[in-house]
């Protein structure tokens, strides 16, 4: 139906103008830039040949010719796919439209095709009978074309296979013997059932013309099964068009629709069914919720997976009493360790089996593992068998109790001989047996050949004809080690050895883990209800697939799904594909059951059937494209002319750095605009930060502002004197002394705070004292100076007012025990070697924290941070001795007036500062001789 025609062919005669345009174009080259050039003679001597300005390059001319031709063709308006009305006008138009799942991928084209036919019917003035084959109610009564068009617009493809028997019946009823003029069957090409005689049936309606219209069928691809294999998810895919080889990508999605794994399926030529794999780790495969064929959006190409792919719930039962003190002798220990990474494990809370088995089954396990249980309570057999038939898997391990059990146990896969077979040992000729290769029908097939596993003891199966096919693993001598038997939907697996190490070393090997894992993987997930009540009620629809393969909560008229134990049914009107159940557990109901193969619809008598394909797109004009092409050519021509004129070369040559720099600046600016760090950061500035920052880079000596002008002045001048002395004598160069208000200033930036006690000053508040306490606790030191060494002279009172004030202050502080500086204390040798610490006065000892034994007392908060005493107390008036005036002269005389004592006062200050700043470093230096000796110096 595709074609090509011009709407205005007459315009094409303008093409004969092209040679004239050619001639004109060749005559007008691009205009050169005129440049006056004084060194013309030099240039003339350099130019080898003179440019012939009479012609432009041939390709430029060709470009312009193409441009002209494109414009001419565009005006002539070429049109693709012109349609012609070929409808038979003798009777009503019968439109049979397959709106099945396979039509979803090209549904719009089908609608377009049907619309075109309805348009034709309207122009022929015939009624239209429109019927959709995948609808439950099919109404084939002929209507006027307008109604048909409305119905067509309202129709959508359904996530179901077509049911054409209803269609033919409905058509017969509706037409009532009237022979349709044209019967157009827009088919998806898929036969419903094994054979499909729809075309032959339609022919019996005796239409004037039978058109069989089908699409390319490439979208008719359906996933019919997905099974979890050892290493990968195996996906079975069937397709309609079997002609050529085709490889389709597969994607596995998790429950939230995110793609998490990918694989491929490859059809070889002529093959309708292929198996693909999606390789993914086991843990990842647990999360698979649906598998889709990429690029094909329909119900068939989407395969839902249910809890069968989740972690299994495994229940344990053991015949022996659980002895937790000796776990290595318990079989459950090995099973537990093997399966814990792969499965949810549940154990009964009671030892009584008659209670434990119903309790376990009520928890809907996928697998029940019984280790060495010979006999079950009589009333446990019935529920257990029902559970297995409902899909449960029973894995049993042998053991002494099973070996001693009677042979009529219904819950073993094979007939067992009574007693066990011992291999090796003192009374046997035979040797312990290794394992043979796994047989191909075994789920263990593909595992590495077991090495080093020796079976010393096992139970033996009675030989039966089908023993080999029930066997999953053999010993090297051919006796079965693992046997299995299907029972209803479920399965019983028996390991002929015990699950602990008494009979073999199998439980110690990695093969044991892998065998258990693969066995458990075979069980159906999601649990199996022990009673069948829920099943008889059916599962309510939870999420249904739409025609394009997405899940929807709109359940429409879907009925609850009755889970049949037998062959799974394909989806139908009552149970469209989707998830049935509830959020907690659901069953996937897919479009096709496992093993289904889609087949093409049976061809009818070829003579009377007109085969057509769907119409392509509507007739579309090439005009815009041609005009766009002409515009592009014009742009290219402009660019070429500019290039030949040297515009780009000049721009690039003249300003490469500048443009690059500008681009860089622009990029950085844009980046800065986008990621403005200042905007993202919170403004954490606080008042007083400036003062704090100014204290941080330099060490400052600090004193407590008492509020008494004279005392504070002496403190300030005293610390200034010490600062000068320190700067002159040592590498420490402190900044200006700082007076601190202990009630408000930040104290942590000062290593030491000098506090002259003055009884007449106001008593600091409790809050201020607690700040001092915190300062000392955090490693700071306070030097208290009562300045009263000789005040008490001549008085009887033992304590001066300053000392009383100090006691009042210290009463609120948590201070360590104190002692006068011992002679071997580091304070006496941190810079100068000193024996006493005089100030203006001499004689008062310097009290520091007593060095107790190493045992630390957690109840004493003001510990020496870094080995430095947090508190020093003196009465010698240090600041008075240190105080100097602006000219560097001492302000106060020492008592007695002795400049040596003042010098010692300064040395005391230096030692205190060094002790503050270096801590125990000087004390550690006593070890230097020993260290040097060790280093061999």
């Amino acid at each position, binding site marked *: 139906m595709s074609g090509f025609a011009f709407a205005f062919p007459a315009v094409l005669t303008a093409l004969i103008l092209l040679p004239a345009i050619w001639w004109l174009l060749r005559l007008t080259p691009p205009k050169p830039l005129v440049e006056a*050039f*004084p060194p013309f003679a030099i240039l003339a001597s350099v130019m080898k040949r003179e440019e012939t300005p009479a012609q432009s390059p041939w390709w430029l001319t060709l470009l312009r010719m193409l441009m002209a031709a494109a414009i001419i063709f565009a005006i002539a308006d070429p049109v693709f796919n012109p349609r012609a009305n070929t409808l038979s006008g003798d009777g009503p138009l019968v439109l049979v439209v397959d709106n099945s799942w396979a039509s979803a991928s090209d549904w719009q084209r089908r609608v377009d095709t049907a619309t075109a036919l309805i348009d034709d019917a309207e122009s022929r003035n015939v009624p239209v009978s429109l019927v959709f084959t995948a609808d439950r109610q099919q109404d084939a009564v002929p209507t006027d074309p307008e109604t048909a068009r409305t119905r067509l617009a309202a129709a959508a493809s359904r996530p179901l296979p077509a049911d054409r028997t209803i269609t033919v019946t409905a058509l017969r009823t509706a037409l009532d013997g009237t022979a349709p003029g044209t019967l157009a069957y827009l088919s998806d090409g898929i036969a419903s059932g094994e054979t499909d005689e729809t075309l032959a049936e339609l022919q019996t309606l005796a239409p004037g013309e039978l058109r069989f219209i089908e699409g390319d069928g490439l979208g008719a691809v359906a996933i019919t099964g997905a099974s979890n294999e050892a290493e990968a998810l195996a996906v079975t895919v069937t397709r309609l068009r079997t002609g050529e080889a085709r490889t389709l990508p597969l994607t596995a999605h998790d429950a939230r629709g995110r793609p998490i794994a990918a694989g491929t399926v490859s059809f070889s030529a002529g093959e309708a069914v292929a198996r693909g794999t999606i390789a993914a780790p086991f843990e990842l495969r647990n999360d698979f919720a649906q598998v889709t064929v990429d690029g094909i959006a329909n119900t068939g190409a989407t395969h839902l997976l249910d809890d069968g792919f989740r972690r299994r719930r495994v229940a344990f039962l053991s015949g022996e009493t659980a002895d937790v003190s000796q776990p290595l002798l318990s079989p459950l220990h090995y099973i537990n360790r093997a399966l814990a990474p792969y499965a949810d494990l549940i154990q009964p809370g009671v030892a009584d089996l008659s209670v434990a088995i119903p309790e376990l089954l009520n928890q809907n396990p996928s697998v029940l593992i019984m280790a060495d249980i010979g006999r079950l309570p009589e009333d446990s057999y019935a529920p257990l068998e029902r559970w297995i038939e409902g899909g449960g898997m029973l894995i049993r391990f042998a053991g002494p109790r099973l070996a001693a059990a009677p042979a009529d146990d219904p819950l073993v896969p094979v007939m067992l001989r009574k007693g066990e077979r011992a291999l090796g040992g003192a009374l046997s000729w035979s040797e312990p047996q290794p394992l043979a290769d796994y047989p191909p029908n075994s789920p263990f097939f593909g595992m590495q050949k077991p090495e080093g596993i020796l079976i010393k003891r096992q139970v033996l199966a009675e030989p039966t004809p089908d023993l080999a096919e029930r066997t999953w693993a053999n010993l090297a001598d051919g006796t079965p080690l693992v046997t299995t038997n299907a029972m209803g939907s479920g399965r019983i697996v028996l390991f002929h050895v015990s699950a602990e190490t008494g009979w073999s070393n199998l439980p110690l090997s990695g093969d044991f883990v892998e065998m258990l894992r693969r066995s458990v993987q075979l069980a159906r997930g999601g649990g199996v209800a022990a009673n069948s009540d829920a099943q008889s009620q059916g599962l309510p629809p939870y999420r249904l697939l739409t025609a394009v393969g997405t899940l929807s909560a709109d359940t429409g008229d879907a009925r609850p799904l009755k889970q049949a134990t037998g062959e799974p049914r394909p989806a139908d009107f009552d149970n469209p594909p989707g998830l049935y159940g509830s959020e907690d557990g659901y069953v996937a109901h897919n479009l096709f059951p496992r093993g289904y193969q889609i087949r093409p619809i049976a061809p009818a008598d070829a003579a009377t059937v007109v085969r057509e394909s769907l119409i392509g797109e509507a007739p579309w004009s090439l005009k815009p494209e041609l005009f766009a092409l002409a515009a592009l050519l014009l742009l290219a021509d402009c660019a070429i002319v500019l290039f030949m004129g040297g515009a780009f070369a000049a721009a690039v040559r003249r300003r490469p750095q500048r443009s690059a720099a500008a681009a860089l600046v622009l990029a950085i600016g844009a980046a800065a605009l986008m990621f403005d760090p200042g905007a993202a950061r919170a403004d954490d500035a606080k008042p007083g930060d400036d003062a704090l920052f100014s204290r941080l880079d330099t060490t400052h000596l600090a004193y407590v502002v008492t509020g008494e002008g004279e005392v504070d002045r002496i403190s300030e001048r005293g610390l200034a004197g010490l600062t000068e002395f320190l700067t002159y004598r040592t590498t420490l160069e402190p900044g200006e002394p700082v007076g601190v208000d202990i009630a408000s200033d930040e104290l942590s930036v000062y290593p030491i705070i000098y506090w002259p006690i003055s009884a007449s000053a106001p008593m600091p508040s409790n809050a201020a004292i607690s700040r001092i306490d915190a300062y000392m606790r955090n490693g700071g030191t306070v030097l208290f100076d009562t300045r009263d060494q000789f005040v008490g002279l001549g008085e009887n009172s033992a304590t001066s007012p300053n000392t009383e004030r100090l006691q009042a202050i210290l009463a609120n502080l948590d201070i360590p025990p104190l002692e006068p500086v011992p002679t071997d204390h580091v304070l006496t040798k941190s810079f100068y070697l000193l024996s006493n610490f005089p100030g203006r006065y001499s004689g008062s000892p310097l009290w520091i924290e007593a060095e107790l034994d190493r045992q630390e007392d957690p109840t004493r908060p003001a510990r020496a941070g870094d080995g430095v005493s947090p508190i020093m107390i003196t009465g010698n008036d240090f600041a008075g001795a240190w105080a100097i005036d602006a000219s560097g002269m001492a302000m106060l005389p020492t008592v007695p007036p002795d400049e040596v004592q003042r010098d010692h006062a300064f040395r005391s200050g230096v030692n205190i500062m060094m002790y503050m700043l270096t801590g125990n470093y000087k004390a550690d230096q006593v070890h230097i001789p020993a260290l040097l000796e060790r280093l061999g110096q």
Partner: protein
Amino acid sequence: MAAIGQIVEPTTASAALSRAQARAALIPDCMVEARRLANTVIAGWHGRRKRGIGENFWQFRPYVDGESLSRIDWRRSARDDHTYVRDREWEAAHTIWIWADLSPSMMYKSTFGTVSKESRALVLMLALAEILARSGERIGCPGIMEPIAARNAAERLAAALMHSNGASGLPDTRMIRGHSDIVLIGDFLDPADDVMERLGPLARRGLRGHVVEIADPAEELFPYVGRTEFTDPETGQKLTAGRAETLKEDYARAYHARRAGLADSLRHLGWSFVTHRTDHLASEALVAMHMYLSGMPAKKPEVRP
């Protein structure tokens, strides 16, 4: 795209004069080193830093036998046992001829240069005249002005230029007499042989020459790209290049070969040769000329790329 180069109107001598004086103010007075002072006997009023005829004291030197006794400075000789002669500083003026090429090829300015070549040549010429006149040299312009020794020589040269009807390629050298210096300012784009044919006779007459070649950056760098039609401002000839950038290397080679040939030939004559580009400061060329004229050969100016 606008053309790179353009033909400009001739600069008026008065405008050039004001700019020249501004330039000249930057340069110290230029003492022309008179190697051939014996031949220029006209007394000037500036010292020559040599003993000779003049009024100012230069040095005492011991009397040697054979000199006139009248030259002995007895006052000085009386102070010790030797006899001394008082030398005076030699004062003399020099004649400098300055000529600038004002032909149509000089009326060119490209977007790279700040002024036209002609404008730059005039500025250089008048600035040189200003500097030299300050030093008392006699300034002349072949074909336009007889040598004069006056403080306002530059103004008078500018006036003479205004009244001359301008453009001629070749200086009329008949009025040049004796041994003097000649400064030639132009673009010298003619073939080097033609140029030397004109300058050779001057050199043979004993003139000491200084040649300043003024070039526009566009002439030296050849920044043309794309399809370009070149026209000769003197003859009006046209030449079209399809892709001008391909000519760049060949042109640069030929251009510099011509310049090198010219410089070589001038060096053989004993003349100095200075190249100057209009995108550089006029003072650069002025200082270079100053150096050559005052007998201190400047370091050869590096040709900027």
